[in-house]
């Protein structure tokens, strides 16, 4: 009797703790959502309503009607998409070499790649800035596509290498016995098997490029070329009439930008967790 009460108490405490954690993780996101559907008349009155009395989609209409904001969505898609494809293509070659070949100089290359995954972006900002201006790429999307490779490529190579290493050797041995060349082994045998790894690393590369801010802030000047993080940031500087920032519209914008990411993350959650831990734990 006593024991079962104690057990029940423990269970209750456990679920209470669970609820607190869940609340902590979700509440800021909920609040942004609540603010995105709360009309200004309720948004800027106290006491606050935790759920709007008259929910509105007005802010969403405003965001979708904002040509520059939609343009920045497109820009981010172009930049993050290109960076992801480039990283995957050339990263797959490199990680095939690093994961399946034994050659002189392999270890140094691997260490350079690992060191670069922790490379502080700010350390080369000045040089990249001069590089970008010298090649007349300042205020263009290619300036971001090229410089983002600094953080997406080493990460892709590192994670894919650990992925290639875990594949059983017998597969390619059989192919070699049948007279296949290394390239054939790569295309026909290993790459199809690496597909899940490519999806994971691609997704992680896409997210990190989509979220980048420092280089976008430094290399992009005009509103038409802004990426999405810059567009969200510049809400800080344009007040619409009143003294408050356009919080409702900003929150609607954040919802539109993050929902695709969250949906993708939830679909691929297992693989993302595996990819993140492969990138970190196995180091």
């Amino acid at each position: 009797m006593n024991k079962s009460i104690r057990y029940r108490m423990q269970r209750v405490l456990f679920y209470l703790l669970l609820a607190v954690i869940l609340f902590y993780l979700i509440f800021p996101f909920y609040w942004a959502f609540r603010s995105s559907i709360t009309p200004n008349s309720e948004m800027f009155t106290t006491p606050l309503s935790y759920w709007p009395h008259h929910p509105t989609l007005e802010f969403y209409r405003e965001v979708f009607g904002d040509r520059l904001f939609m343009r920045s969505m497109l820009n981010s898609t172009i930049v993050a998409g290109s960076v992801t494809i480039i990283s995957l293509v050339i990263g797959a070659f490199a990680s095939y070499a690093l994961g399946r070949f034994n050659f002189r100089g392999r270890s140094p290359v691997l260490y350079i790649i690992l060191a670069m995954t922790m490379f502080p972006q700010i350390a080369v900002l000045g040089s990249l800035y001069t590089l970008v201006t010298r090649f007349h790429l300042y205020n263009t999307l290619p300036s971001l596509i090229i410089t983002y490779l600094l953080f997406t490529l080493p990460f892709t190579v590192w994670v894919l290498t650990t992925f290639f290493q875990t594949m059983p050797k017998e597969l390619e041995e059989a192919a070699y016995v049948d007279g296949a060349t290394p390239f054939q082994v790569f295309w026909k045998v290993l790459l199809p098997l690496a597909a899940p790894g490519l999806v994971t690393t691609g997704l992680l590369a896409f997210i990190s490029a989509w979220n980048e801010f420092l280089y976008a802030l430094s290399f992009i000047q005009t509103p038409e070329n802004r990426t999405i993080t810059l567009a969200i940031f510049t809400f800080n500087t344009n007040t619409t009439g009143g003294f408050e920032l356009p919080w409702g519209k900003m929150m609607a914008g954040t919802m539109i930008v993050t929902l695709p990411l969250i949906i993708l993350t939830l679909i691929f959650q297992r693989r993302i967790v595996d990819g993140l831990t492969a990138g970190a734990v196995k180091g």
Partner: protein
Amino acid sequence: MDGKAATDIPIETPKSQPSRIATLRGSQTRTAWFLLIPTLLVVTLVALVPLIQTVWYSFTNARLASVQPTHFVGLKNYRYLLHDIAFRDSIWVTVKFTVITVVIEFALGIVIALVVNSNFKGRGGMRAAMLVPWAIPTVISAQMWKWMYNGIYGVFNDMLVDKLHILNHNIAWISQPNTSLPAVAAVDIWKTTPFVALLLLAGLQVIPTDVYEAATVDGANTVQQFFRITVPLLRPAILVALIFRTLDALRVFDVFFVMFSSRASTQTMAIYDQQNLVSFSDVGYGSTISVAIFVIIGIFVVAYVTALRVERT
């Protein structure tokens, strides 16, 4: 990383054909380097050359879009850096931020990891919820929190003053100097704790359950089990996550810049550097700061790696 063991492709070759082995080995090496060319080219273009260039610029008076020719100025920039109070302040802000966030993220992260590691209904949903803060771009989570911190219409003031009556007046969280650092740290903690928890969770799941069963048989209670089994076995995962988090926190830029712009009292090292490089086009002095940041981060890496080595021996 084990450098050699993983990739040795055994090639069955009769002993009578040594030259064939040599050509095969040679062609393997050639193929490998051939495959590496694009990656090495990119790495050279966007990392190695810029890094060397940064070091070179740090000894010059280089300015962007300037008619003045760039010339070598020796240690002038470094001498100036030593007496630069603004930079010293930015180091202090960054280090304080790093210590606060890393400590709290690990304390909270281990609690969350332990909770999620136990058996309960809806565990999958919980793991999914953990990825939500992680998936949101830092710039966006900073804006979301900035709105929650709002002095008049922010939800924090509403909760603490009107609902819970913990405070008796509203607080301007972001503009007050004594609350601005905790405020910005809270955003980073919210975003990154789940990441830390996931790394620790991966470490926890590797620990075999029979170790705990044996300890229970021997009469060890939960607290003893935590400190005698969980913590020691989790150590490698903790240290790796610690290095990652510290390096990330030391180069923090986004969350500070969104919340405070480039306000002098809350500049991190990265913000101060970006201001010099881009806003003032002072590539020479900015590069000197870059080198300094690189060295400071390097010191932390060396310290951690040494600590790791000492522990292993």
